[in-house]
């Protein structure tokens, strides 16, 4: 029998926030009250105790690119960031385009045991954009979210087929929206900064035309659609209009798109290189506001590890992507004014609902599975080292506000701040 008490926290339950202790036994929240005790106590010191965070978008690089990250180091990073479930994107080597590959990822996640690693499935075989992947097999292996992330499905006819097929099953088509004909050779946002630097730019429209097309296909097929890492004001407007029309659409934003705009690229530091690229100040304002109002439903970190040497090159030559799991909660805390209930809705509850993860994203009350996080919104810290195998973070060395003190995964402490 394992027992833990989270002592002196502000517990985020279905009726709001209460000052209380939380007793966890055998993986279940047993009691919420005052003066609860046990041998194993975590002192929360007034921090929020909420549902463990759920990330709709990570890259754990296994199988195939374990020098960047693997499911074990990725799980440690997730736990350190307060996450209890993550969706691992399918752009591994090989791509997760068949049932046995998806089962490998989730079983490795269970073996490590720090976080539920939920595999995403590729929409097309090998993410090559030409043939449907083994959608039924993937579904049977527990995949609910399908994406060729890293690339868009460019072929409209093929995407329509995937949507029709998945609408039968109830799967989610998730899209990395980028019209490649508009982004060739480009590594940053097209705008005043790219013009000054003489760098080819990725226009906001390259993202928006794909979302426009996809929403028309959603209207046709009725499939559930998830716009990944929405980064422009135009994309936000499209998602908002689609929701008004009643389409089954959700959207995600990354912490780095909440935190930074394209002026960061002036320093030509590859730590700020990712796709979609950092956009303009008004785009940042738009995605922040959309997360606040709920037009953007969830935060997906797009945690994308790369080895130090791979990033220690000129900007154009660097691989795209930044890590984000360990700093996500702090970034959202700093950049978007949310009350505790809204904060956990965006970072946990909505994502768990989207992904049908009924053991996660549950308001803290007796009887729910003990997937929890202790988060102190007022504590400041400076990330220097990471649990991730990689350190390609634009937040490294920046003072941040809001710290994860502990993470409980299935009733076991998966992370505790030292």
């Amino acid at each position, binding site marked *: 029998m394992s027992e833990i008490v989270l002592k002196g926290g502000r517990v985020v339950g279905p009726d709001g926030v209460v000052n209380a202790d939380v007793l966890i036994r055998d993986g279940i929240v047993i009691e919420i009250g005052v003066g609860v005790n046990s041998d194993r106590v975590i002192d929360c010191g007034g921090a929020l105790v909420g549902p463990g965070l759920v990330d709709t978008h990570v890259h754990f690089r296994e199988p195939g690119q374990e020098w960047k990250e693997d499911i074990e180091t990725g799980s440690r990073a997730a736990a350190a960031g307060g996450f209890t479930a993550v969706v691992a994107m399918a752009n591994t080597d090989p791509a997760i385009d068949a049932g046995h590959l998806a089962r490998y990822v989730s079983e490795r996640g269970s073996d490590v045991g720090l976080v539920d690693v939920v595999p995403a499935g590729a929409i097309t075989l090998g993410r090559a954009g030409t043939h449907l992947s083994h959608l039924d097999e993937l579904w049977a292996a527990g995949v609910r979210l399908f994406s060729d992330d890293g690339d868009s499905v460019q072929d409209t006819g093929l995407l329509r087929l995937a949507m029709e097929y998945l609408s039968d099953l109830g799967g989610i088509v998730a899209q990395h929206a980028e019209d490649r004909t508009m982004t060739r050779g480009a590594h940053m946002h097209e*705008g005043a900064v*790219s*013009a000054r630097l*003489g760098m*080819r730019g990725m226009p906001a429209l390259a993202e928006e035309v794909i979302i426009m097309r996809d929403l028309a296909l959603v209207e046709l097929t009725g499939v559930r659609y998830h716009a990944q890492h929405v980064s422009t004001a135009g994309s936000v407007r499209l998602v908002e209009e689609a929701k008004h029309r009643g389409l089954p659409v959700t959207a995600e934003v990354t912490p780095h798109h909440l935190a930074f705009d394209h002026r960061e690229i002036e320093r030509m530091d590859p730590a700020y290189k990712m796709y979609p690229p950092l956009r303009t100040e008004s785009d940042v304002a738009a995605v922040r506001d959309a997360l606040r109002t709920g037009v953007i439903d969830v935060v997906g970190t797009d945690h994308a590890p790369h080895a130090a040497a791979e990033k*220690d090159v000129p*900007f*154009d030559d660097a691989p795209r992507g930044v890590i984000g799991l360990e700093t996500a909660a702090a970034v959202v805390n700093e950049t978007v004014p949310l009350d505790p209930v809204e904060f956990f809705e965006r970072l946990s509850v909505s994502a768990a609902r989207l992904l049908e993860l009924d053991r996660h994203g549950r308001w803290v009350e007796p009887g729910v599975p003990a997937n929890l996080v202790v988060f102190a919104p007022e504590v400041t810290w400076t990330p220097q080292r990471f649990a991730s195998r990689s350190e390609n973070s634009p937040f490294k060395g920046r003072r941040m506000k809001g710290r994860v003190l502990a993470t409980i995964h299935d009733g076991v402490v998966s992370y505790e701040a030292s």
Partner: protein
Amino acid sequence: MNDFLTVEGLSKDELTSLLDLSDEFVEVLARPIPKVPALRGRTVAMLFFEPSTRTRMSFERAAKALSADTMSFSPGTSSLSKGESLKDTALTIRAMGADALVVRHTSTGAPWRIAEWTGLPVLNGGDGAHQHPTQALLDALTIRQHFGSLDGLKVAIVGDIRHSRVARSNITAFSRLGATVTLVAPKTLLPVDLEGWPARTAGAIDEVLDSDVIYLLRIQKERGGASVLPSLPEYVSRFGLTWDRFARMPSDSVVMHPGPMNRGVEIAPEVADHARSLVEPQVANGVAVRMAVLFRLLGGEATDV
């Protein structure tokens, strides 16, 4: 001055002082023995990760005229082609004893990275479509020699501004030295956003024939795999400096080009060879301004000149 990477941070006074120093080296280069001992014992390494003839030879000539030793690197035959990283290549060349590096690279910002990695003085010999600061100095020097000053001059830059590091450096330098700059190009060859740029734009070369200086840029029909122009003859019809157009320019105006020229495209052959074409003085001045920059960076004493 620790590095010479961009003209952006240089004030009018700093630019003028570099041009004044360049004038002294113009005089040195006119001597019977065009060489001074200022940088004797120092080694300048040329790291050209992108093909170049004139800029590389010009830097070599400049270094040697200052009595520095030079060493060179060419990517085709180097360990880069064996997969060595840019960082390791730069550190290896530092370990051989280079005192300064001249860097040209296809990627924006590469000279900055090499400066960070090595801690050596780095001269930007052109990075991507970003900066080419010694080109800006040599062009400014050439204009100053001809007109006495850039102050109040009308300069038109015509051609592929979007993909031009020469244009980015020259616009800044010319305007800071008092010239009025107009950019002339089809939309596909103008930067996507000109907010804050010290320049106006025009849609055809006929609108700027009253300029004191027409500065032509090399035209390539294909950029990055995409066609940016319908055809070269159509470009010539709206943007080429033909003989007829040249004949309508003021009699004391001049024509410039950073080379290599496409004769018959952006510049008519007889214009290129005309006495009011400053193409050859540009090349000659390139050596003097590079001497000035090397001299500043490697801390030679002024009395050595």
